[in-house]
């Protein structure tokens, strides 16, 4: 009979950790919808990139919402229009097509969001993995330095950086990345410290694996789960920060379109033409909401114990 029990246990299909994660995430309908929406924005951003930055793309997408001419081309005879067949979401105060500007803005927001989070994961993750693994005095000193960063509310730190260095794209990305570095450092450090104590690391040590090999092969793959969750939520935060900075004139500058500076523009005619601000803001809400739902879904899927 014991034999039979064993057979039952193995008859359940075994999946790798990523396949298992995907399997669990698939059951969460809201998360899948969010993923679908985000994939849509991703595709739009890529098309926008091709349409603006490549010569073939410029030809193919000429005259469409992806055409850069529609993003910046003014038409002062047709300002602040409501949606029509020419302009599906109407026009802004310079007669530019709102949809075209939102599409271009999506590309900017997603670029800044992804690259700033990538930067902070890379820097924060490395710092955390290093100090978590080395421990001792290095750990102490570096984590105290991280506390200093955490003591400044992130939007204020970003404001300080951009107002000093200017808002060229690399600086903007840096300004948004730096405040979230300590968070990633802490998460990785905690993960590394728990993993370090576990037996399979000792086993790897015992068979003579080098430190770097242990970090690359064992510790990094095992700290992925909390990092992925935090990254998803951080992208949302980064997009919000970018919009916030642009709103107060510190981020992406007109005539380039970005959701925050569109809202800043919309503020000037908010009482007479609220539709423009409404639709711009809703776009941001949809993206951020999707990211947050996906983040929650990932957390539940990665650690079912936390779900209650």
């Amino acid at each position, binding site marked *: 009979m014991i034999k039979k029990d064993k057979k039952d246990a193995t008859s359940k299909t075994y999946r790798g950790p990523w396949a298992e994660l995907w399997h669990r995430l698939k059951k969460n309908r809201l998360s899948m919808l969010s993923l679908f929406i985000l994939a849509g924005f991703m595709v739009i951003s890529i098309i926008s990139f091709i349409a603006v930055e490549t010569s073939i793309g410029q030809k193919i997408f000429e005259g469409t919402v992806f055409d850069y001419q529609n993003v910046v081309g003014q038409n002062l005879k047709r300002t602040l229009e409501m949606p029509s067949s020419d302009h599906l979401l109407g026009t802004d105060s310079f007669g530019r097509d709102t949809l075209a500007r939102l599409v271009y803005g999506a590309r900017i927001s997603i670029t800044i969001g992804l690259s700033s989070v990538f930067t902070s994961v890379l820097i924060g993750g490395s710092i955390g993995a290093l100090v978590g693994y080395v421990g001792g005095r290095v750990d102490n000193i570096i984590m*105290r*330095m991280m*506390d*200093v*960063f955490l*003591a*400044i*509310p*992130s*939007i*204020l*730190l970003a*404001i*300080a*950086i951009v*107002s*000093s*260095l*200017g808002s060229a794209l690399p600086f903007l990305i840096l300004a948004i990345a730096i405040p979230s570095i300590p968070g990633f450092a802490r998460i990785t450090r905690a993960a590394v410290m728990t993993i370090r104590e576990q037996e399979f690391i000792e086993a790897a040590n015992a068979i003579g694996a080098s430190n770097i090999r242990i970090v690359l092969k064992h510790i990094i793959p095992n700290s992925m789960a909390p990092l992925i969750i935090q990254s998803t939520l951080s992208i*949302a935060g980064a997009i*919000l920060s970018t*919009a*916030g900075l642009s*709103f*107060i*004139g*510190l981020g992406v500058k007109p005539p380039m379109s970005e959701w*925050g500076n569109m*809202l800043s523009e*919309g*503020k000037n005619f*908010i*009482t007479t033409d*609220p539709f423009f*601000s*409404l639709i*711009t*803001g809703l776009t*941001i*809400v949809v993206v*951020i*909401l999707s*990211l*947050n*739902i996906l983040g*929650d879904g990932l957390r539940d899927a990665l650690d079912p114990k936390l779900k*209650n």
Partner: protein
Amino acid sequence: MGSYIFKRVLALVPILIGVSFLVFTIMHLSPGDPASLVLGEQATAEQIAQKREEMGLNDPFLVQYGNYVFKYVQGDFGQSYVSNRDVATEILSRFPNTVTLTIASMIIAIGIAIPTGIIAATKQYSITDNVATVLALLGVSMPNFWLGLMLIIGIAVPVQFIPTGGMKVAYTLFGNIKIPTLGSIILPAITLGTGAAGIIMRMTRSSMLEVVRQDYIRTARAKGVSEKVVIRKHALSNALIPIVTVVGLQFGYLLGGAVLTESVFSWPGVGRYMVDSIKTRDMPVVIAGVIFMASVFTIVNLFVDILYAYIDPRIKAEYKKG
């Protein structure tokens, strides 16, 4: 307890030094020359050179920093490049308005979030729970300046007694602290508090769900304690610890978020002053403003740490030992 508080206050010093050093360094990296900013475009090279000497800009970086901190702790935040006014006076006169706004939003956030979180947790998976959870997520996902704009067109424009911006003073206390009218603070406070409400609600819900599964809750039920009292007396007092942490952290976000909200509603606080100063590249205001707000945030976090001891006897015991 007293010695613990003293130790914690002492531990603030290196953090505050670190913050000021960091901000000062960032600002120092600015490519612009403050001397020419102060003097304007017509200034001659000699005038600029003289001004540089006067402002101490030729000193080594650390000396400049040392001088700055030395003056800062004495309450001298420098002079505005634009208006030539004393930055400390300008910031301190606006600070009460920012505090009023922050506290008002926190009251709204806590007032909505904690009861909703408790109800959602006690009725897990009910319609109430689902609606509350979705609303909380929506609150977290909204850019607060956009919510502000929407409230202006949705409420301030149609409703007579609610202004679209600015602060109407109802009373003045101690000559400096202005208490605004309810009408003028309500929209900025909602705008600023919504995000915090979402986060606090989510924390309350998950913390309560965690606590009600604990063995000591079962012990309380086994005594014949009614469900209401179990939740209010046993569960909430334990769930409060992580909630207090989040509330403390949210104070920081509110101080940061105030920068945007104050801009939307033309609220005369430190945040709007800073935004205006950034536009004119008025560096002394930006540096002093960021350091000032970060210091306030750090001190708030200290209060939160001390508050723990009153909620959790285990932490109090640790404090006594340490």
